[in-house]
């Protein structure tokens, strides 16, 4: 334990927030509290992970490691076959998290809505898990529910059906209600429970951006702006209630971008002979949830029309026909006719070398490696040559205007470094104007649709006595956050962290600026870790 006085640290996440949007909002006076915080602190662009997705990025935030080293490569991870992906949980995080390290040194963490926090890794810390919760247990300890009435209204997510029904105004109303309900609980915990490390993630910025980022960035859409204004009011509440000696960090896991063009990556792989499709589709079987059951009920009353591989092969030859068919589907069939159309094209993994394995769930390319997957077909010998061949080919793809579709293609060694598990993705893309998708919803390679999706440029802002004021630095990496917080707290930084302590954020003469970083040895597995690891590996073999 450090001899330094324990510092209280508050981390507020703004999922998917980007300075591209926040700067104009502050300039127009929509976020006055954030603007005042920027003047009091140090800001930077926060570079996300590869991929720039919620699950891997927040896990990097709390481990200091890139996804290749912490194990949560995406929302979904491969099992013994690329055809069977599982949702990542907190159990997939390799090694210790920031909050476990703080806890070991006497800090009391409170974690609310941190992706990857289910199931909780700390038995005795207050944890409210995130939208990645599997099951109905989301509040730990469960007895908290009896202490504060507000928890009875707490919801992990808003009413998503309103978004599905494209009832934007109602959805935004529910987002605001959801925000108020969550914040009532956050405020109660902040004021009534002991903490030294307090984490809360506002997911609402991501949810509204997926719905309306293009309208926000281009037209400052009034109704969507209400979310940002409301969050700014809550920032003001935090500033009124935060202990004067506490340090505040506001950050996002990735940024946002408005992509107006799509590239059907799996379709291209099929054309090049790297991927083989079948008529099996990629649909999850069964209907377990209430919403899915309702949808299935509606669909059961409709006439079913399955569009398979042959239909898309035909459409591939006649682009104008596809455009017409799609227009009729969206304008007429979907709205007025009792017909349910399902796309029934899937991947034949026994004949596929490369793919986005799960439609557009995954946007990194996986090689179907024979030594990793039970139905893999690419040998060790073939692997390096295949990687180089793909990089050359993808870099040479041009759209109809002769432009490259991607800024850069990276191997996993370039992105993650050495010692990466075999099950990590193999190729990553730095996108340009095109959003890459894996679905087979087109016979063409290129499409024109608006996609409000992530980019790599998130936000970072830190405010407190140790930090510089009114300072802008170029960028930090998400993997720097754990080293920063550990060093600020006077604790050792594990040598295995990929990030570094960003000294440029510290004020001149600040104690953290004067103190050298102390590195801890590699985290040594305890006997308990070893037992659990042996049991886990036995079960994997079962």
């Amino acid at each position: 334990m450090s001899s330094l006085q324990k510092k209280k640290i508050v981390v507020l996440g703004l999922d998917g927030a980007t300075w591209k949007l926040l700067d104009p909002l502050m300039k127009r006076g929509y976020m006055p509290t954030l603007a005042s915080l920027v003047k009091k602190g140090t800001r930077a662009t926060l570079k996300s992970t590869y991929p720039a997705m919620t699950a891997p990025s927040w896990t990097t935030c709390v481990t200091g490691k890139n996804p290749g080293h912490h194990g949560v490569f995406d929302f979904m991870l491969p099992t013994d076959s690329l055809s069977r992906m599982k949702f990542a949980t907190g159990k997939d995080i390799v090694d210790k998290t920031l909050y476990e390290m703080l806890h070991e040194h006497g800090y009391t963490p409170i974690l609310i809505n941190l992706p990857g926090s289910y199931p909780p890794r700390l038995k005795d810390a207050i944890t409210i898990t995130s939208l990645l919760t599997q099951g109905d247990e989301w509040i730990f300890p469960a007895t908290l529910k009896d202490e504060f009435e507000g928890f009875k209204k707490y919801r992990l997510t808003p009413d998503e059906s309103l978004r599905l029904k494209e009832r934007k105004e109602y959805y935004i109303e529910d987002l605001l209600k959801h925000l108020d309900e969550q914040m009532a609980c956050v405020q109660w915990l902040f004021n009534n429970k002991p903490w030294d490390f307090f984490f809360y993630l506002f997911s609402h910025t991501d949810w509204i951006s997926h719905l309306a980022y293009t309208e926000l960035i281009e037209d400052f859409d009034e109704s969507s702006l209400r979310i940002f204004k409301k969050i700014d009011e809550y920032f003001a509440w935090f500033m009124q209630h935060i202990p004067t000696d506490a340090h505040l960090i506001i950050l996002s896991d990735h940024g946002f971008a408005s992509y107006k063009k799509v590239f059907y990556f799996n379709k291209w792989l099929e054309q090049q002979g790297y991927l083989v499709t079948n008529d099996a589709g990629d649909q999850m079987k069964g209907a377990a949830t209430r919403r899915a059951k309702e949808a299935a009920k509606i669909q059961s009353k409709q006439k079913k029309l399955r569009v398979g591989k042959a239909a898309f092969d035909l459409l591939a030859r006649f682009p104008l026909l596809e455009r017409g068919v799609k227009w009729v589907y969206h304008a007429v069939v979907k709205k007025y006719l009792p017909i349910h159309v399902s796309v029934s094209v899937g991947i034949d993994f026994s004949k596929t070398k490369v793919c986005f394995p799960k439609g557009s769930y995954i946007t990194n390319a996986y090689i179907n490696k024979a030594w990793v997957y039970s139905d893999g077909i690419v040998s060790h010998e073939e692997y390096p040559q295949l990687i180089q061949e793909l990089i050359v080919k993808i870099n040479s793809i041009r759209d109809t205007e002769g432009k490259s579709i991607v800024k850069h293609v990276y191997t996993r060694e370039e992105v993650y470094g050495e010692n990466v598990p075999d099950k990590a993705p193999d190729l990553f893309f730095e996108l340009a104007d095109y959003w890459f998708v894996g679905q087979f919803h087109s016979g063409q390679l290129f499409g024109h649709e608006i996609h409000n999706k992530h980019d790599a440029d998130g936000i970072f802002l830190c405010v407190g006595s140790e930090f510089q004021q009114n300072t802008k630095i170029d960028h930090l990496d998400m993997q720097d956050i754990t080293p920063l917080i550990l060093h600020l707290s006077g604790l050792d930084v594990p040598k295995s962290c990929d990030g570094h302590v960003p000294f440029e954020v510290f004020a001149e003469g600040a104690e953290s600026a004067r103190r050298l970083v102390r590195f801890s040895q590699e985290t040594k597995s305890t006997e308990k870790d070893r037992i659990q690891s042996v049991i886990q590996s036995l079960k994997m073999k079962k």
Partner: protein
Amino acid sequence: MKNIPLSDDLYAQIQAHIQGSDEFDSPEEYVDFVLQSVLNGDEDMDLDDDDEDDEDEDDEDGEKKSKVRDRLENLGYLD
């Protein structure tokens, strides 16, 4: 509290194994931890077994994962 007999040999082996450990004070604690891990591990295994998920989502674990998928799809994380 129930007693489960262990052979003298096994007890001695555990005793030797945890000698000097600051995690376990006694062989009883060690055995308790191992068994708890095995039993908890069983639950984990069921939760993560996607082979069956695709085949039958009517069971409880399938429903848990299905809910996560629905949330992610419906909120725009996944198309």
